[in-house]
Every structure is written in structure tokens, then in C-alpha cells.
């Protein structure tokens, strides 16, 4: 594989028949003019559509960001991405159904818990091993490091099993973990801040100073969580995002990695991930039901009236999540060495390997983050409407379309494309029934691929 | 055969200020050249000087950014790949592009059969076509391998099959992108023999090579490219001995 970009060769050149471009422009102008006229007719309704569009656009933007991150690194369409969205949403359903929906006795299933616990255990063990091995190589034998990470991973798996087994007590079972995470953050974040002023300070020395207060803060946060049963819903978001991310990482490390070494074409990867999507979707139907189910109501379910249009507080929250997600990804990709490595791998994987980037670890991280974004989008959709097993594929396709519209491989393109897709969809159904939404999205996709295959903001 | 029109012009291929840019890279830059009818012309130039891009432009594999290609007297601003055989032109690829997952036999047969859609649907291989395919495979020495998939051949064998595929087209002009690169000396001799035969049969050959011995041996004329522009063209020895060419090759 001489050039990575070869794999994206399915992208067509622009239509070069002159008439069609003019026609497309004329048609587009006509549609825009018609919409403008309609907006003039009833501004409040237009505002309503715009609100709705931006609200769904936020979800699409989240999806597109994760999707474009994964796609522009490994250059194949990973359909597990859709399954991750469904897993995220159903994870919340799974964890909250007992208290919020009147329990179905068999929902908390031992086998399902065991599967997820094993996945998390494996992922944690691998991550620990790859992180510790280069640092501790001098002091311990690889076997020792392996066994130690294996034990820690096993512990993490067992802990996950416990968390999943008592979903109604998430606030209790998760409080130690939260305490530890907060304590660690309370050391590392100030450390970074101090490092900018005192460049040669050592982490161990800093810990000696800041360790005690950090532990106190961590313990206090853990204590607060343990005393707040209402936090369960939001904790379940975190848990299911993590689970979806771990499954994504495990898939990459356990399957895609080997497959990519042998695969002649990105289609092999696509079909394999199609198989995974099929299996996961059916698995979800088996564990839950095929029918759509509501998630427990989150905050912000009351509607606000702004200039004659109504919008739910939760939708505004979703928009905030999308923007925050964008900010985090932007920091990660543009400001850190991780981001530079991702970029290098996307440009040419072979060369990055040669210059010493640990491609396995970086790509695994990309899959983890991508799946987390998908899961988050799935959760937001689930709260906004309902969860259903088919949602994965539809969300995947929407994320796909949004990233093509925005310009595949471009982070800014992803967020722009998401909002554009959402708004276009909503304005598209002004004169049509709401069920035509998906068709409109695909018509938009085909128009873009035909006339602007680079998208709104091309990569580079 | 288009040779009936050969009275029209002395040049089988001409370009007028053709360009091709890849982003900031000017792979071919306002290039004007002419390749006379019959005989063998070689194109040489350092790596990345735009030789392959030129061939791709001439054969319609890449769209022109500007300028005009004149094939056999017909001026074209847009070269359509599927029309190049009608202009008496065919080519081989530098990176050997066979149809990998079909047999060597089918690789040859596919260029011998009907082009039009409906007749193709009702056409089975005729004995005459089979005989022709067989002749060609024997000529390039690949008859024994006719039943293996193209992807299972070695690089040199693939190169030979590709040359056979171009031969099967039986047209006026052959553009060959580095037909000798990566071949075992014996194979080189075989390809040389084939090309000499083609030349005596009155075909026009344009080939790219980095091997100056072969260039000297085979070609009647030479074209030297550098950074997408014409550096020199004409008889082989004077051009190769001229100072600017030596400088471009050694000083680059």
C-alpha cells in the first residue's frame, strides 16, 4: 500500500458535464429562495425548525466528529461505529431500567455483565501493559509486568462486573472509582499548570506536595457521590460510554489490527464491521426488545419558549455537549503529540511506523475515543426520543453523511456538516411529512458527492 | 486501421502546451512536443520529472488541466480514455495494472473482444480470437501460465503479460511506461526483441526508460523531460551528449 489516500479512492471527481453543475446551482438557489420566502411567511415556525435542526445537528456533529476521526486515521468505514451508538444508548437503558422503568426481571443478565467485564478487563490489562512496559522495562522482567497488568486488569474486570450487577446502586459502586479519578486529576492538572512555570519540576516531587490535598478532594467527591442516588443516571452515561469505547478498542486490538495487515481492500474491513454491526444489533434485540423504549427523563425536559418557538432545555444541553466535544477533540488533535501522531498516521501509516510512532497504541486510542463519541450521541438521541435497536445503523449513516457534507477527514468540517445536515433535514420536512427526513439526508449526500465531493471544508 | 490517414501529418502524437498540476506540484508544465510517425521514441528524465504523468495525459487516464493533445491529426482538449484505441493508441502502466483476479488468458482475451455492449452480450470466444490470444501469449512466453490468476505471477511475468495485452490491441502507437524496469536480463532481451519486431512491423513505439544502454540501442529519437518541461529532443546521441542533459542528470 504505497499511499494511504489510495484507499479513499471511492471518492469521485466532480461531475464535469458543464450543464449539470449549472442546473444544480439553479435548483439549489431555487430551493433556498423558496425557503427564504417561507421563512418570510412565518418567522416563528422557521425559528422552530432552525432550533430543531440545530438540536439534532448537535447529535450529528458528535457522530461526525468521532467518525471522521476514525475514518481519517485508518481509512476504512468502520460500521461498528453505529453499534457503539446503540450500545451507549442501551447501556443507559440497561443500567437505569431497574429503578426508572419498572424492572424486567431478566434485564440484568449475568452473561452480558460477564462479557462486558471481560472486555474491560482485557482492555485495561493491555493498556497498562503497553504503558508500563517501556517505563519499567529496566527494573522488572516483561513477565512480571505482564502478570501485574493482568492482575490489575482482572481487578478492573471484576469491578466492572460488580458495577453492572447492581445498577440501581451506581452511586455507591462507582464512588471509589470517582474518588480515585478525581484525586489523580487533582494531581495531574495542577502539575501541568505548574510545569509551564517551573519547567523542570518532577512529578514525584510535585506529588509529595500536592498528594495529600488531592486525596482529600478525591475522597470528598467520592463521599458526595455515594450520598447522591440521583447521580445514577449521569453515572450510567459515563459507564456506558466507557463500555462502548472499550468494546471499540478491543475490536481494533483483537480483530481489525490483524485483519488490516492482510486485507487487500478497505471493503474487507467494511464487510467485517458490517458483520459486527449485524451481530450487535441482533444481540441488542435479544437482550432487550425490538420495540422502541424510552430512557428515563433527564433534566431539562420542560420546554422553553423563545420568540414563539419552543425548545427543550435538554436540547440546549445537547448542543453544549457537541460544542464541548468539539473543543476537547480540537485540543486533543491540534495541541498534543497524540494529535500529531494521529495526523501522521492518517497521512501515511507506514512512514509513521518507521519514524517511531507506536501506531497500535495511537489507533487503539482513536477507536476508543471514536466509540465514546458515538455512544454519547446515542445517549443524547435516546433521551431526546427513544432507544431502539435499529438506531445504530441510522445514526451511523447520519454521522457518515454529516462528515461527507462537512468534508471527510476535517474536524471543523464534521461539526459544520453535522449542524448543516440537521438544519437541512428539518427545513426539508417543512412541506413534507416528517418521515421523509432520512430520504432528504441521503438526497443531500448524493448531491454533495456529485457536485462537491470534497465537502464544505476539504481536508487540508 | 488508421494508417490509411497517415498522409495527413508526419506526427502521430503532438501536444500543445499541456499542463497537469497536483496541488502545488507542476507535474507537467506547458509542455509542447511532437512524436513522429513510426520508429521508436524514448522519453527519459529524472524521477518525478513528469514522464508517467505525460503518458497518463496522452492516454486519457488523467484529465488535462490545460492545452491540447493532437493524436493522429485529431486535436483533443479532453482525451477520453475509452476513445484512445480509436485514435490508434494503447499503453502499458509503470505499476503493472493487470486484471488481478482473472486468468492470464482472460487478461488477453478481454482486449480482443467486442467493444459494443449488445454484441458483447451475445459474443462467445471465436476460434480466430482464441488463436490470436494464443499467438500473443506464445510471443511473450506466457502460454504455460495461461490458466493462473494474474495476481499469482511474478513481477516480471506480469510485465510480460501486460506487454502482451498491449500487443493484442494491434494499434498504431504504443506508449510503454518503463517496460524494462525490474526485469531479469533474459526478460529484458525478450522485451527488446518484441519491441524490435513491432518496430519492423511499422508500429510507433514511445517508451520510458532509465536505462541509457537500452535507450541507445532501441530508440531512433529521444525526448528529455525535466520538472515537467521539455529539456531536449531529437537524435539520441547528440541529445544525450549535450551539456544541459548531462547536467540535469548528474547535477540534479
Amino acid at each position: 500500500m504505497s499511499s494511504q489516500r489510495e484507499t479513499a479512492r471511492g471518492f469521485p471527481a466532480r461531475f464535469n458535464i458543464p450543464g449539470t453543475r449549472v442546473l444544480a446551482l439553479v435548483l439549489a438557489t431555487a430551493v433556498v429562495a423558496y425557503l427564504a420566502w417561507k421563512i418570510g411567511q412565518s418567522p416563528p415556525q422557521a425559528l422552530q425548525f432552525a432550533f430543531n435542526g440545530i438540536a439534532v445537528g448537535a447529535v450529528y456533529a458528535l457522530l461526525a466528529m468521532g467518525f471522521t476521526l476514525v475514518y481519517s486515521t485508518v481509512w476504512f468505514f468502520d460500521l461498528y461505529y453505529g453499534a457503539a451508538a446503540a450500545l451507549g444508548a442501551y447501556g443507559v437503558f440497561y443500567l437505569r431500567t431497574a429503578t426508572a422503568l419498572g424492572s424486567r426481571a431478566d434485564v440484568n443478565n449475568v452473561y452480558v455483565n460477564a462479557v462486558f467485564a471481560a472486555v474491560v478487563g482485557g482492555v485495561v490489562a493491555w493498556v497498562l501493559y503497553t504503558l508500563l512496559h517501556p517505563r519499567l522495562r529496566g527494573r522488572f522482567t516483561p513477565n512480571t509486568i505482564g502478570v501485574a497488568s493482568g492482575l490489575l486488569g482482572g481487578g478492573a474486570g471484576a469491578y466492572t462486573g460488580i458495577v453492572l450487577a447492581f445498577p440501581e446502586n451506581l452511586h455507591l459502586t462507582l464512588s471509589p472509582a470517582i474518588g480515585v479519578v478525581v484525586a489523580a486529576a487533582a494531581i495531574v492538572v495542577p502539575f501541568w499548570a505548574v510545569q509551564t512555570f517551573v519547567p523542570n519540576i518532577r512529578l514525584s516531587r510535585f506529588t509529595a506536595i500536592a498528594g495529600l490535598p488531592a486525596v482529600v478532594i478525591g475522597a470528598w467527591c467520592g463521599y458526595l457521590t455515594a450520598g447522591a442516588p440521583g447521580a445514577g443516571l449521569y453515572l450510567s452515561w459515563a459507564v456506558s460510554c466507557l463500555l462502548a469505547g472499550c468494546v471499540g478498542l478491543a475490536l481494533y486490538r483483537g480483530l481489525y489490527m490483524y485483519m488490516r495487515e492482510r486485507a487487500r481492500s478497505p471493503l474487507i474491513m467494511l464487510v467485517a464491521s458490517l458483520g459486527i454491526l449485524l451481530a450487535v444489533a441482533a444481540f441488542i434485540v435479544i437482550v432487550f426488545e425490538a420495540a422502541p423504549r424510552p430512557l428515563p427523563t433527564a433534566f431539562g425536559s420542560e420546554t422553553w419558549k423563545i420568540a414563539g418557538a419552543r425548545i427543550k432545555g435538554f436540547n440546549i444541553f445537547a448542543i453544549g455537549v457537541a460544542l464541548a466535544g468539539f473543543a476537547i477533540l480540537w485540543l486533543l488533535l491540534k495541541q498534543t503529540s497524540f494529535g500529531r501522531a494521529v495526523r501522521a498516521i492518517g497521512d501515511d501509516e507506514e512512514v509513521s511506523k518507521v519514524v517511531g510512532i507506536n501506531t497500535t497504541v495511537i489507533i487503539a486510542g482513536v477507536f476508543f475515543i471514536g466509540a465514546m463519541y458515538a455512544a454519547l450521541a446515542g445517549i443524547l438521541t435516546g433521551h431526546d426520543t427513544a432507544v431502539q435497536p435499529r438506531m445504530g445503523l441510522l445514526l451511523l449513516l447520519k454521522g457518515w453523511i454529516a462528515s461527507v457534507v462537512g468534508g471527510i477527514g476535517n474536524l471543523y468540517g464534521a461539526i459544520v456538516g453535522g449542524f448543516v445536515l440537521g438544519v437541512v433535514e428539518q427545513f426539508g420536512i417543512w412541506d413534507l411529512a416528517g418521515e421523509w427526513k432520512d430520504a432528504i439526508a441521503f438526497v443531500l449526500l448524493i448531491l454533495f458527492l456529485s457536485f462537491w465531493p470534497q465537502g464544505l471544508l476539504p481536508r487540508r | 486501421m488508421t494508417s490509411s490517414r497517415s498522409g495527413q501529418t508526419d506526427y502521430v502524437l503532438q501536444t500543445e502546451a499541456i499542463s497537469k498540476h497536483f496541488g502545488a506540484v507542476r507535474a507537467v508544465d506547458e509542455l509542447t512536443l511532437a512524436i513522429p510517425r513510426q520508429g521508436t521514441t524514448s522519453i527519459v528524465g529524472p524521477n518525478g520529472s513528469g514522464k508517467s504523468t505525460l503518458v497518463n495525459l496522452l492516454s486519457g487516464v488523467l484529465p488535462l488541466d490545460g492545452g491540447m493533445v493532437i493524436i493522429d491529426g485529431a486535436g483533443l482538449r479532453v482525451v477520453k480514455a475509452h476513445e484512445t484505441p480509436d485514435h490508434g493508441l494503447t499503453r502499458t502502466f509503470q505499476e503493472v495494472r493487470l486484471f488481478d483476479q482473472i486468468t492470464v488468458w482472460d487478461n488477453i482475451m478481454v482486449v480482443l473482444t467486442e467493444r459494443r455492449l449488445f454484441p458483447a452480450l451475445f459474443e462467445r470466444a471465436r476460434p480466430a480470437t482464441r488463436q490470436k490470444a494464443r499467438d500473443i501469449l506464445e510471443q511473450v512466453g506466457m502460454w504455460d501460465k495461461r490458466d493462473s490468476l494474474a495476481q499469482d505471477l511474478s513481477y516480471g511475468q506480469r510485465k510480460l503479460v501486460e506487454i502482451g495485452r498491449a500487443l493484442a490491441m494491434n494499434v498504431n502507437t504504443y506508449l510503454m511506461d518503463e517496460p524494462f524496469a525490474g526485469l531479469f536480463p533474459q526478460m529484458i532481451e525478450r522485451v527488446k526483441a518484441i519491441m524490435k519486431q513491432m518496430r519492423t512491423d511499422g508500429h510507433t513505439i514511445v517508451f520510458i526508460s532509465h536505462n541509457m544502454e537500452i535507450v541507445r540501442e532501441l530508440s531512433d529519437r529521444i525526448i528529455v523531460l525535466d520538472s515537467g518541461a521539455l529539456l531536449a529532443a531529437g537524435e539520441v546521441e547528440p541529445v544525450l551528449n549535450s551539456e544541459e542533459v548531462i547536467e540535469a542528470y548528474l547535477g540534479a
Partner: protein
Amino acid sequence: MPVDMQRIRELPALVRNPREMARHARSNVELWANILVIGGAIAFMLWQGAGFAVIVGTVFAIWAILSVSLNLVVGFTGLLSVGHIGFFGVGAYTMAILTSSPEYEQLRTEAIPTFGWPFFAALPVCALLAGLAAIIVGIVFNRFRDDIFVLVSFGFAIISFNVFLNWRAVTRGAFGIHEIARPEIGDWRFDGDVEFLLLCLAFLAVVMLISWFVVSSSFGRVLTAIREDEQAIEVFGYQATHYKLAVWVISAMMAGIAGGLFSSWTTFIDPNSFILLESVLLVAIVILGGLATIWGSLLGAMAFVLLEEGMRFIPFLPTEYIGQARQVVLGILLVLLMLFRPQGLVGRYRL
């Protein structure tokens, strides 16, 4: 049977050398796949009796027509289309509307146009309309390849589903169309299941024959070349877009026939028969059976139907989960195939 002492003596060495063993096994996969699937089918028929086998046979025949036709596009031309179900749906709805009887439709509140045609008059129209849809879709899709083609073909499946669901004036949306006529010639109605099975098998044979005719011609050879390298084949004077469009339309017309048969067989259709998932399953069948072989598609369809029927007899599996369990198995099979056998069981083309 004479005992091959040489083979037996080689056995221990073979067992000790996993790579050698894998090679042996691989060379026999095709044989074993054939034996397993056909043997399974025969065993199933013997076990369940003719009556049941007839119904399953009809399902098989319709899936087989679909997968043979899709293989022309996926296996021979290399366009991984996930939208084939759309053409199937066009055929099915055409049949349903053309044959629906005015007397019955008058009783319904939401009326759809009725024609009251006989089955055999409507069937060619099914193929024609599916072909017409394919021409329009094909002209737009012709420019896309590889991943992007997959994406837009997803889009076609979703758009066609939307049309079936929302164009209520013609399809009656989610309520579906009932009382679709069974075929009849003069006085002889194809009422019984056996007659219908024979009819489907006959059409399957015709479709296979046409497919064979197409792929064994010069046209078919050009298709495989397009699959391998579209740009290269253009240089040799073929206009790849025309060829792709032609095979796309041929394949869609076959799917239209399958749709006509399907709606006449079930006598009731609604949009849920034409969801994207069915299309994905169809692709899985084609890949499982084998790319670029007609026989493989048959084998794939047979394996698919057997998988479902076989699962009825897994003791702990509740019946409502059979479809899902099959889907899980198919998904895992797809992953394994992509890992170890990207051409499918008896395929001639690796993705």
C-alpha cells in the same frame, strides 16, 4: 475402497504441522461446503417431510433469485450494493398494485389504484419498472466506487423504504396491501404451495440461465475486468460506465421478478419486508455463498434458509429470537469469512 497407505503414513507429519494441515483443509473447503449445505438440505427434507420443505423451498427460491442477481453486481462487477432490496420492493409493489382486485379495494377506506391484471401480465411489468428505477439510480450512482458506493447504496435502500412507507396514495403506507392475486393460466390456478414452488424454481432456473449467459459472454469478461481495474479497462476501449449500468439494470430486473413472485406468494406486503436489514442480510448471503459464482449464490441462499430452519430445533432458543440468533450467527460468519476466506465458501473473487 483401497486404502492409500502413503496418505496414512503422511498423516502424523501432517498433524504435527499445522500450516500444512491448514493448507489441506483450505483446498477442500469448497467440497465440504457443498457437501454440508446440500447434505443439510436433503437431511432437512427427509426429516421434516415434503409439506414443510415445499414452503421452505419457496423461500429459498426467492432468496436465491435475489442473491444470484446481486452476485452479478457484487461478485462480477465489484460494486458492493446494499440497496438491492429497493428493486425487490419495486417489483413486489408493482405486482401488488397491478393485480389487486377492484372489488376488494373498494371496501378499504384508503384506496389505492387498482388494475386487476393477471399475474403473468404483471410480472414483466415488475421487471420493467425495477429496470427503469435501476436506470435512474444507476445513472446517478455510476460515478461512485468502493466505500462510497456502499454508502450511497445504503442511501438507496433507505430512500426506497421511505417511498414505500410514505407514498400512501399508491402503497397504502404501513397498512400494506392485502389479497394479492396468485398466478393462474386459464382455469389452472397456482393455488397450492407445490405449484408455486415449481413456478419459483422455474424462474430461478431462468434467472440462473440468464446470469450464466451474461457472465460467460465477452460482456461478462469485461465486467470482471471493470471490477479489477476500471481505469485500465477504459484505456482498452471499453466504456465502463455503460457496462456497469447495463449489468445494474439486468440485476435489478431479476430482483423485480423476485419481488413479483414474493408478493404474489405471501399475498400481503408492507414496507417492513423491504427494510435495510433485509438488504444487508442479502449481501451477507452473497458473500457467504461465494463471490463471482452463480452456484455459490445458490449455496448461500440454501445455507441461509437452513440456518433459520435449523435454529428452530435448538432447544433453549425461544421462537421469537430465531431471526435474531440467525443474524448473530451470520454476523460472526461474515467476520470469520473476511478473516480467513474473503471469497466466500465457493467464491472466485476475493474482496
